[in-house]
């Protein structure tokens, strides 16, 4: 069904819908950003994990809606995710109209393979604009393309761009307008007539079954893609007879000399070869060794390649683990400054507490992750843009297949050792849905940097300073190392089981393009970082914020805080009257009282009541209600455990893991009967719990975003919390038995 004809309209022009599609590594998102000025509405297509990215621009007073489709090599959809592009192009995606034109972006250095997708798009009967991107790189590589001849042969408008330098973007806008207003082009019939007869026959058969509107393109796909998504959907609707009809048609086709699926690639690549004959000239033969190949000699070499990889991973890890630290401290300092300001302006009371402990702390808990996200994506974007990312996957693939994943899962998982949030976001490089899901689900098990304070506190306070072999092996270090590795060790069987059960299926091909190395483009790197940071702050951030405020409320209400606020007022008064940095006995006394009151208040809060109600559950782990409340309050963000412990054990919330006073207070803490609360098994069970538990609302919400489903964060939360509880239980029970034994 043709959409628009070239009748001129006088009214305010209708918005033109234009789809942007292309192979991976063609610079599609760079072009998208260049065309739309980087302003995009991002969401998910319903029911799938595919990102829906819409952008707008105006050209000549004509508004255009640009739909970014996922990078793909082919329209032969084998899953619901891959089918999304086909549905958008056919105008069957509910909230997007049928496109008026398709922009197909190609890598100018690699026309032959890139035109395969174009030849499929031509079958849709939509006007197509070809964009030959990375034109500058093709020229540098000595590739000459006779554009007028290619235009003539392909029967389509062609524009050349170097989108990473914003070259040729204006011409693309103008050409989009011209293309969209074109009359629809008839598909080129590449296949033998027998094929089109079968497509026709299938249409008649479907009509007989009551399906009158089946698009020709889908019928072609159903015939061509054995066990593909088009076949699958038809079978869902019509049952097995659909597959029988397809099977018979395919048998007839094979007899007529067009055996599916072989025929499609054969026919299309032969056609491409003919189109490119004498149109593309290369200064060197395609099989000749290039500079990129020579770099690969080193970077994929078993020794130099692995060494480079190890060093690079170490640097990235250091960056998100250590270099991010000052930036995170800075975010926290700014948060402290603002809190201080609010405390000066707003008198102590519920409002002040809501602002400082609820809202500002909530916003802070979102922003504090930004340095790690930005740093990781700086590395990832550079690695992707220069072509190294594919080599990293190439090097690590064999190792990762041992747990049923592929080399592409390595970097997201390694990043998760610093922070699972950027790690989960980095799984987008994994095309295969099942691999990507499993990677997302085990990523939060990796020991992130927020777990470290808990280990530091517990190890320093309760693990004896024993060492062997002259101080080389040290018990405290050993425990720390074990805790850091525990999650990853558990992740191995979890990934394996997930791949064998819910996510089982044929091993996805690891057929991966290794793009030629090039210098990364700063703009491209910046765009990507900005994209990810924004996605995190805007869409995960708002929910993290809500969760933080809710936990604040649970710890604050229902008790009367008047007494505490009066005390806080007095303290503030005395503090301001004393010279900076000094103290008085009266002040100390009041602060002591204030801490005792806040400890009592948290005990009586909803949170405290909950902790006491479920104390029996924690008893089995060797914990009392205070540790339980600390663990519960840490569900939004595990790092608050230190502050919560500080408050509950009457030290105030302003403590740090290495704080000697906090350590000695915990060492002195007892059960009501006077026996010590914290023993080595208790300390170990706390650490095991924190190592395995999904105490991070931000990660869970990023999982929700990336999987487009609430079910997966719920699943992650459930399995991790279960493991955490069982792990802590075993640790405590066995530990106690050994200690007593």
């Amino acid at each position, binding site marked *: 069904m043709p959409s628009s004809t070239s009748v001129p309209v006088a009214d305010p022009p209708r918005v033109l819908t234009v789809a942007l599609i292309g192979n991976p590594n063609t610079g599609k998102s760079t072009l998208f950003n260049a065309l739309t000025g980087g302003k995009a509405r991002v969401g998910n297509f319903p029911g799938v994990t595919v990102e829906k990215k819409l952008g707008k621009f105006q050209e000549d007073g004509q508004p255009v809606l640009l739909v970014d489709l996922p990078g793909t090599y082919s329209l032969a959809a084998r899953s619901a995710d891959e089918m999304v592009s086909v549905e958008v192009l056919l105008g069957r995606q509910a909230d997007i109209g049928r496109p008026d034109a398709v922009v197909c972006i190609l890598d100018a250095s690699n026309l032959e393979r890139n035109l395969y997708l174009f030849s499929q798009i031509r079958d849709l009967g939509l006007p197509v604009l070809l964009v030959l991107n990375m034109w500058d790189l093709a020229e540098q590589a000595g590739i000459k393309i006779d554009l007028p001849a290619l235009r003539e042969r392909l029967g389509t408008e062609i524009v050349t761009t170097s989108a990473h330098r914003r070259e040729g973007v204006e011409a693309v806008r103008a050409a989009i307008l011209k293309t969209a207003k074109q009359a629809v082009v008839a598909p080129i019939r590449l296949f033998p007539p027998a094929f089109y007869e079968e497509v026709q026959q299938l249409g008649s058969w479907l009509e007989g079954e009551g399906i009158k509107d089946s698009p020709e393109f889908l019928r072609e796909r159903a015939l061509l893609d054995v066990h593909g998504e088009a076949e699958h959907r038809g079978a869902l609707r019509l049952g097995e007879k659909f597959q029988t009809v397809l099977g018979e048609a395919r048998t007839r086709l094979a007899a007529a000399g067009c055996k*599916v*699926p072989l025929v499609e690639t054969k026919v299309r690549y032969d056609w491409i070869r003919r189109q490119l004959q004498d149109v593309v000239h290369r200064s060197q033969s395609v099989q000749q060794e290039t500079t990129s190949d020579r770099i690969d000699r080193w970077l994929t070499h078993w020794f130099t390649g692995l060494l480079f990889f190890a060093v690079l991973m170490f640097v990235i890890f250091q960056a998100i683990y250590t270099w991010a630290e000052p930036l995170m401290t800075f975010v926290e300092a700014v948060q402290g400054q603002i809190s201080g300001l609010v405390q000066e302006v707003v008198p102590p009371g519920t409002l002040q507490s809501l602002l400082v402990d609820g809202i500002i702390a909530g916003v802070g808990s979102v922003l504090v992750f930004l340095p790690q996200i930005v740093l990781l994506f700086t590395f990832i974007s550079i690695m992707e843009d220069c072509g190294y990312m594919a080599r990293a996957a190439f090097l690590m693939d*064999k190792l990762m297949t041992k747990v049923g994943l592929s080399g592409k899962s390595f970097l997201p998982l390694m990043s998760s050792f610093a922070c699972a949030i950027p790690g989960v976001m980095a799984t987008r490089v994994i095309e295969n849905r099942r691999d990507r899901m499993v990677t997302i689900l085990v990523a939060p098990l990796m020991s992130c940097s927020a777990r470290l304070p808990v280990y530091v506190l517990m190890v320093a306070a309760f693990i004896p300073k024993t060492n062997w072999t002259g101080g080389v092996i040290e018990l405290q270090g050993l425990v720390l190392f074990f805790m850091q590795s525990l999650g990853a060790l558990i992740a191995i069987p979890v990934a394996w089981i997930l791949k064998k059960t819910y996510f089982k299926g044929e*091993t996805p091909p690891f057929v991966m393009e290794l793009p030629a190395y090039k210098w990364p483009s700063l703009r491209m790197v910046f765009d990507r970082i900005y994209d990810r940071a924004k996605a995190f702050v805007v869409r995960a951030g708002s929910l993290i914020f809500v969760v933080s405020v809710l936990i604040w409320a649970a710890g604050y209400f229902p008790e009367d805080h008047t007494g505490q606020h009066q005390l806080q007022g007095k303290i503030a008064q005395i503090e301001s009257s004393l010279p900076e940095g000094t103290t008085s006995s009266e002040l100390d006394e009041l602060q002591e009282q204030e801490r005792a009151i806040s400890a009592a208040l948290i005990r009586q809060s909803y949170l405290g009541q909950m902790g006491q109600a479920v104390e029996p559950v924690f008893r089995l782990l060797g914990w009392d209600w205070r540790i339980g409340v600390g663990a519960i309050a840490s569900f939004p963000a595990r790092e608050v455990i230190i502050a919560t412990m500080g408050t509950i054990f009457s030290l105030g919330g302003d403590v740090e893991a290495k704080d000697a006073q906090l350590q000695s207070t915990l060492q002195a803490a007892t059960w009501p009967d006077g026996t010590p609360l914290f023993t080595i098994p208790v300390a170990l069970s706390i650490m095991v719990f924190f190592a395995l538990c999904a105490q991070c609302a931000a990660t869970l919400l990023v999982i929700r975003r990336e999987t487009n489903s609430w079910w997966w964060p719920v699943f992650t939360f459930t399995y991790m919390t279960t493991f955490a509880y069982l792990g802590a239980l075993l640790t405590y029970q066995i530990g106690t038995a050994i200690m007593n034994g």
Partner: protein
Amino acid sequence: MSHSPTLADLKTVGDSATILEVNGEDGIAVRLMEMGLTDGEEISVIGFAPLGDPIEFAIRGYRISLRSSEAQRVRVAPNPRS
């Protein structure tokens, strides 16, 4: 079982061959063909990952990585070493 050589039998960097056919019609076979591994095409070995798997090949002017299990699906006629 045919014992004709496959892509996985090319053991040295620089080895080249002409593709005869891709076995099977599952997702992997289709993907290989879509990426341009069709009969009559020239393909050559660029390098191997540390444990000999996956393998980097040159085809149709670009570079592609295949696991050796995937390379075994591609029947080839090896070209004489030059």
